[in-house]
């Protein structure tokens, strides 16, 4: 939760640096509430990418929320709760609330789980607008090196998050292809580089990881990884 708030502080600072208003920063946090997409949006808007490119990129980035919601809801489902409430609680599902709720599921009865997800998700959701505004105003007040550090926080944070879990060949390849293609394509097709990077790098990684020789290598990797876990 601390790191999550810190990264919304960083987002606020980033939007201050890019001359958005504090209301726009707040509106983005409250309406989207999925930081990687918000950052991509701000970066692409700053570099002058067309609206369609931004919406597609944010859509691809946040498509990962689909399996998160789809895998979590069956665990919290109750017969007496109307369907529309699940569409509301889906807004509170993001990476942090998903991990936090999934971890506590075994300790909770079926009737408590939806309450837990709602409470935990809402606590996280309500902390983020404060973090965004704090970051926004910090960026204007503190010495320039600290402002720079606040803006630098998110790329560093996401880089380390990616390196946290590298057991699957498909993910490792996606990161390698994306990290190589991304900056290089940006020099030639800045507006569409992210979407092309994702589609080309991601599809190549996905396809390669399905070839038999890599699946064998992956099994080997898992056997090796097991004693540490």
């Amino acid at each position, binding site marked *: 939760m601390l*790191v999550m708030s810190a990264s919304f502080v960083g987002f606020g600072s980033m939007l201050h*640096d*890019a*001359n958005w208003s504090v209301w*726009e920063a707040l*509106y*983005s946090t409250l*309406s989207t509430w*999925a930081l990687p*997409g*918000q*950052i*991509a*949006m701000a*970066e692409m*808007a*700053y*570099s*002058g990418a067309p609206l369609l490119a*931004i919406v597609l990129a*944010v*859509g*691809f*980035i*946040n*498509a990962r929320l*689909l*399996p998160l*919601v*789809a*895998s979590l*809801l069956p665990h919290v489902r109750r017969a007496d709760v109307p369907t529309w409430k*699940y569409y509301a609680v889906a*807004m509170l*599902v993001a990476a942090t609330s998903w991990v936090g709720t999934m971890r506590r599921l075994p300790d909770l009865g079926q009737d408590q789980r939806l309450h837990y997800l709602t409470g935990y998700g809402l606590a996280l959701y309500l902390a983020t607008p404060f973090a965004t505004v704090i970051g926004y105003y910090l960026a204007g007040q503190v010495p320039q090196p600290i*402002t*720079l550090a606040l*803006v*630098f*926080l998110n*790329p*560093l944070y996401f*880089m380390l998050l*990616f390196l*946290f879990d590298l057991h699957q060949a498909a*993910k490792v390849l996606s*990161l390698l*292809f*994306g*990290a190589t293609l*991304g900056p290089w394509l*940006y*020099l030639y097709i800045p507006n569409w580089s992210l*979407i092309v990077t*994702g589609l080309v*790098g*991601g*599809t190549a990684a*996905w396809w390669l990881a*399905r070839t038999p020789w890599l699946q064998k290598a992956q099994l080997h990797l898992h056997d090796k990884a097991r004693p540490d876990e």
Partner: protein
Amino acid sequence: MNDAMLYSPILVITLAALSTYAARAAGAFLSGRISTQSPVIDWITCVTYALLAGLVVRMIWLPLGALAATPDWVRLCSAATGLLVFFIARKSVGFGVLSGTLMLIALTW
């Protein structure tokens, strides 16, 4: 945003929010009806990973805004410090981020 942005910020934020909520609503609709370990979902994960990896490296190496005024070696050195501490501290994301940002402050002070 800079002068290159010709559309309204509220419009781009709203469309980004809608495309995000669409994924959540689709997840709610499909929950219990699809397996979350299908090849299609694996493909989505790969596309997201590649896209974000490209964005992260670009933000460190070719940043926009105020960070663009810092020398490349300062950003690369700070990222490397974060990386080193992350692995030394047994993959602690918190310590990694803290040390990397502190290094950036030290180098730009």
